[in-house]
Structures are given as structure tokens and as C-alpha cells.
């Protein structure tokens, strides 16, 4: 994998390509998720059952990080993990099979959409708010102790930044100079609660100072802003200079989870106009970095990869209920 320290046009194309891939993926999951839940939405029904938190609108965060990371770096994410998982390089087929609850999935169907674990890319996530952060410290700790320059990225929402685990993690990481980068995705909402009703400051970036850690806020859902901030923070971490905090003002394009009618949402009207995907595409076209044809190619190749993954998942065997107790422990009998 190429690392792009400078923001070249190649990097820009790569980021757009990543954003397109993610959006294509989320649209496909959206389609599959709802395909067989009617008439009358039944959350437990269909090929993809359960809660579904999609990340459309938050692609800039993922794409801006991706180019700075190698397979050996680690990432922990949240209940809304697809975009950053894709950016981290998690295999689409196995991830999709997990979301479909198949035996070929990352967790053999035991984990599900909020519990994607990929040892190959050191990716994991958790459905408990902010509790994905502490394990990232441990991965960073292992990297540090082994004298490598690997880093761990710990992603959380702005709602998570009011949770105790956030505070403890930032203090410990700063204290031990762990190679961690904390990335807060501020999409303005924690389910139905707007940031102003959850957070006593207007930007979590100011909270970095409470740990003696650089804190930076990337405005306007800017993928290039993320790229720059992440590049610097990751370089810092690799150089042994310790953790950083990056907050990105991003956008939750859809509901908190699928089925969310968003009656509480006051900003809904303006949302489509803020979609970062056409914005960035148009910017790159205008700057001559890509043509409309390039974009169409990106889309086509994304569709191909995504549909391949969906087909793989759908074609995979479902787990055998007789095996439900397998994998509680790695060794020894089930008690």
C-alpha cells in the first residue's frame, strides 16, 4: 500500500474513489436491508436483520484517514463502522458475509454489523458508546512496546465524547505517549440528541488541551482537511510523540439507524445539499483532477466490487444452530 504524505492529485483521486466505494456499499446495504422487511417494517426480519447504522455522509472521515494507514496499523470503530472498515482495508466479502450473518463472515455470523473483527487489518468495533476507545490504547501499547512505528486509530462519535471512557482513554494515551489518534466524528447528533444538548463545549477539539494533547477540528466535512490533520497526527504518533485528537464536523445523511423517521431532526431540509460526495466530485472535476468519465469509472468499479461482495454473502452458508456454542472459549470444554 502506498502512503501519501503529500496531498497529490493521485491522493485526491484515491480519496474520491474511496468515498464512492463507501457510498456504493452503504446504498447496497440499505437496499438489501429493506428488501425483505415489508409489509410493515420488522427489524428482525430479512436477510440482514437487527439494527443497521449506515455511514452515508461520513465518507470524508474514512477517506481522509485511509491513505495514511497500512495493514499493520490498527483501528477501532463504533456501531457505525462500515466506512472506516472499508477505509482500513477490511475484506468486503467477509465483512458483507458477516452483516448477512453467514458462516463465511468475519465472525462466522456470531458478531454482526456492530461487531466486525478482522485480525488481518487489526480492525474491530463495538456497539457500546466510547468503549471501543480503550482497546485501541492496548493495540498502540503493543506496537510501542515492540518498537514499531505502527499506530492505532480510535474512532468515536461526538456523542461518545461525553462518556467516561473517552476521558480515561485520552488521559492514559497522553500519559504514556501511546501512538493513538482519536478521531471524533461530529455528525451533530447522537440519535435524536443534538450536540448542543449533550456537550458543554462547541468543539471537542478544545478537550485535547485537558490532556496536553493537540486537538484540531476539521470543518465542513472536508476530506482534504481530514487528510491533512490525520497526516500530521499519524506522523506524530509514528514518531513517538504521542496521541492527538481530531474532531471532524461531518454529516449524518440518513437516519440514526434504518427505520428512524427523524421526526426530531430540525436540520433535515438542508441535509441533501450538504452531501460531501457530489461536493468533492464537483470540486475535483472543476479543478481538472478527474473527468466525468473518471467518476463514472469509479462508480462502476465500486458497484462491481460491492455487488460481488453481496453475491458472495448471499451465496454463503448460514451457520448451523448446532454450532451456536462453538467459539465461547478457544480451548477446553464449554462449562
Amino acid at each position: 500500500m502506498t502512503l501519501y504524505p503529500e496531498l497529490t492529485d493521485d491522493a485526491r483521486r484515491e480519496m474520491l474513489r474511496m468515498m464512492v466505494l463507501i457510498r456504493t456499499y452503504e446504498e447496497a446495504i440499505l437496499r438489501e436491508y429493506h428488501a425483505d422487511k415489508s409489509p410493515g417494517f420488522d427489524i428482525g426480519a430479512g436477510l440482514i436483520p437487527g439494527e443497521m447504522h449506515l455511514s452515508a455522509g461520513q465518507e470524508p472521515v474514512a477517506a481522509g484517514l485511509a491513505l495514511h494507514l497500512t495493514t499493520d496499523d490498527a483501528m477501532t470503530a463504533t456501531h457505525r463502522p462500515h466506512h472506516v472498515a472499508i477505509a482500513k482495508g477490511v475484506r468486503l466479502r467477509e465483512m458483507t458475509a458477516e452483516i448477512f450473518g453467514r458462516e463465511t463472515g468475519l465472525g462466522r455470523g456470531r458478531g454482526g454489523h456492530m461487531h466486525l473483527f478482522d485480525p488481518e487489518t487489526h480492525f474491530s468495533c463495538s456497539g457500546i458508546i466510547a468503549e471501543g476507545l480503550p482497546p485501541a490504547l492496548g493495540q498502540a501499547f503493543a506496537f510501542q512496546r515492540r518498537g514499531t512505528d505502527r499506530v492505532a486509530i480510535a474512532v468515536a462519535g461526538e456523542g461518545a465524547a461525553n462518556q467516561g471512557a473517552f476521558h480515561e482513554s485520552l488521559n492514559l494515551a497522553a500519559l504514556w505517549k501511546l501512538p493513538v489518534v482519536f478521531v471524533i466524528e461530529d455528525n451533530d447528533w447522537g440519535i435524536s440528541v443534538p450536540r448542543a444538548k449533550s456537550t458543554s463545549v462547541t468543539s471537542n477539539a478544545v478537550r485535547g488541551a485537558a490532556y496536553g494533547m493537540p486537538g484540531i477540528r476539521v470543518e465542513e466535512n472536508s476530506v482534504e482537511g481530514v487528510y491533512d490533520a490525520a497526516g500530521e497526527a499519524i506522523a506524530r504518533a509514528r514518531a513517538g510523540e504521542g496521541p492527538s485528537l481530531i474532531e471532524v464536523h461531518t454529516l449524518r445523511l440518513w437516519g440514526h439507524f434504518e427505520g428512524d423517521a427523524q421526526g426530531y431532526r430540525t436540520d433535515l431540509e438542508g441535509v441533501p445539499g450538504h452531501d460531501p460526495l457530489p461536493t468533492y466530485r464537483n470540486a475535483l472535476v472543476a479543478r481538472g483532477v478527474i473527468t466525468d468519465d473518471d467518476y463514472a469509472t469509479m462508480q462502476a468499479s465500486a458497484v462491481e466490487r460491492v455487488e460481488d461482495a453481496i453475491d458472495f454473502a448471499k451465496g454463503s452458508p448460514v451457520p448451523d444452530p448446532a454450532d451456536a456454542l462453538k467459539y465461547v472459549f478457544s480451548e477446553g470444554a464449554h462449562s
Partner: protein
Amino acid sequence: MNTPLPANDLDGQVLAIEPDAGKRKLSTAKAIQEAIAQQMRADDSVFVMGEDVGPYGGIFSSTTGLIEEFGPHRIIDTPISETAFIGTGIGAAVEGMRPIVELMFADFFGVCMDQIYNHMAKIHYESGGNVQVPMVLMTAVGGGYSDGAQHSQSLWGTFAHLPGMKVVVPSNPYDAKGLMTAAIRSNDPVVFMFHKGVMGLGWMKKNKRSIDAVPEESYEVPIGKARVAREGTDVTIVTLSLSVHHSLDVAEKLEQEGISVEVIDLRSLVPLDRDAILASVSKTGRLIVVDEDYQSFGVSGEVIASVVERQPGLLTHVSRVCVPDVPLPYASQLEYGVLPTPARIEAAVRDAVAGRGTS
């Protein structure tokens, strides 16, 4: 591009108030909302606090519509800071208010259990009875819709094991209203655990008993009294929450084969109505505990021990239909392989009357 959202009623509104034979029927969710609203009208020290309890109305509709009547001053959305806001409930209760605090899923107890079990539950005792904590901690439990290992647990055994808090677990609208009313009026801390599958939500598979007749006036269902949900003579099923319905379904089915099943709905775990359990097995001699919590070191063992420590020779058959000691799997096939399904309950009853051991 924007999402074509399916028609749905996340807030459960459409289910409410379907008159039937002159009797007003409510979903369990509506019954809970009504209990809260009535107590809030009667006592202005009652308030509700939690994540998404305001305009959203509670993720599982426990507070739908309350903010319209009582305003954001008494129906209070919180940050995602369970330790802080549950602690706020405790402090407010110590000062004489009557908070109802929602922990969105019981699965999240691990981020705030210290406030719950070391503070809410112990202050009364540690103060030698001088400080009361009249607080309700309301929380959703249960699986069956592929929400994975961190959002599908029942965990009532964990709460019931730790002293100082009452633990109530309603299975139907009538009990839910009466137990919530009793909980709010109680001077002790009460953990009120509702199974998502009994709420009567429009967007989740539901059973027919999740919408049922509920009196309009306030009433209490006393905390600590089990209910004989169905009388029978051959086998006793002791159970709670959603599993009550599965057990009743199985009992109805097997009645046609001449198998008579008694179903005891515990309604509360603390206090546990050991007399009711004993009375039933004194008739049947056969005990099956059906429990959606993990099997070992929990409710099922306690129910069984409660009988045999009093009358060791009484039981001729004992078995358990619980979640074996495994995290709740995501894939439906696996999840329904470990949940206490009607099929597993039926098999257990057949084994019991046939005198076969279950494995």
C-alpha cells in the same frame, strides 16, 4: 441522495387504544407511558431522564408523548453519560425527588453499574435507613431480532443478585402499568426491566398478549407477588417476561393433548415469591424454569434451589430452558438456537411428563 424510509412507527403510536368489547386495550409501551404520566400529574417531584426519552419518546417507546404534556423540564434528554445521569437521579432522589431514569439497554450496565449497585442500592442500608433513594431505573432487555451480543441480553439475574434494589420484570400491559405505578411510589430503588418483545412495538415481532386490557385509573400491582398465569396440574413452568407468553402458547397447545401445564409469571425477582413457586410445584412435582437470561449462576438455579432447600424430596423432575452460557449470537439461526423458544419449551414439557431428563 436521500433514503427512501419505509413506513413505520418507531414510536409505537399506532398501536395504542384499540377498544375491544368495551375494554380499552393498550400496548405494554403505552401502559408504561400512562403509568408515568399519571404519577407525574399526581406528584411534581416525579421526572424522567435518559437518552432519547424526549422528542424521540424512548428508543422502545417507554416515554412516547410525555414531553408534549410535561415539557423538556421534566422529560429530560441526557448526554451519553450513564454514570453521570444515573448518579444525578440518585442525588435527586436523596433530596426527595422521584426520578425515573432510563438506561437504554440493560446491556449497557457495565458503564454505570457502580452508581447502580454501589450507590443507588446501598445508600439506604449504609445510612442505617436514614436516607431513602426513591428512584426507578427503567431499562430494556431481551433479544430475538439479531441485535448481537451487546444489545440482546436479559441480565436480570445480574441485577437480582446484588442486594438493595427491587427488580421487577413485567410480561404484559396490565402488570407493566401496575408495577410501574408501584415502582414510582416506592420509597426504595426499583429496577424496572421491560423486554422489547412485550412492548407491542409496531416494528418488532410481537406476541398477541403485548396489547391487552388496561384500566384507565391508577392502580398498583404489588412488587413481590408472582401471578399464576395459567393453572395446571402436570408440570409447573416458572418464568418471566417474554417467556411467559411462549410458555402460555405451549401450555395452550399441549392442553389439547391432555398435558396440563401451570405457568407462574414471577413478575419480580426481588423480592422473589418463593411461596408461589413452592405452592405450584407442591401440586405438580415437576419444575421447568424458562429464562431468557444466561443459564448458569442466575435465576434458574435460584428458583430450583428455593424449592429443594425447603423440600428436598418434592421434585420428581427439574429442568431448565435458558440461554446456555454463550454470548447472544447475531445470525438468526444461531440466536434462535439459544433462545428459550416455544419449541424448546414444548420439548422440555414433553420430557417432563414422560419422565425423561433433558440435556
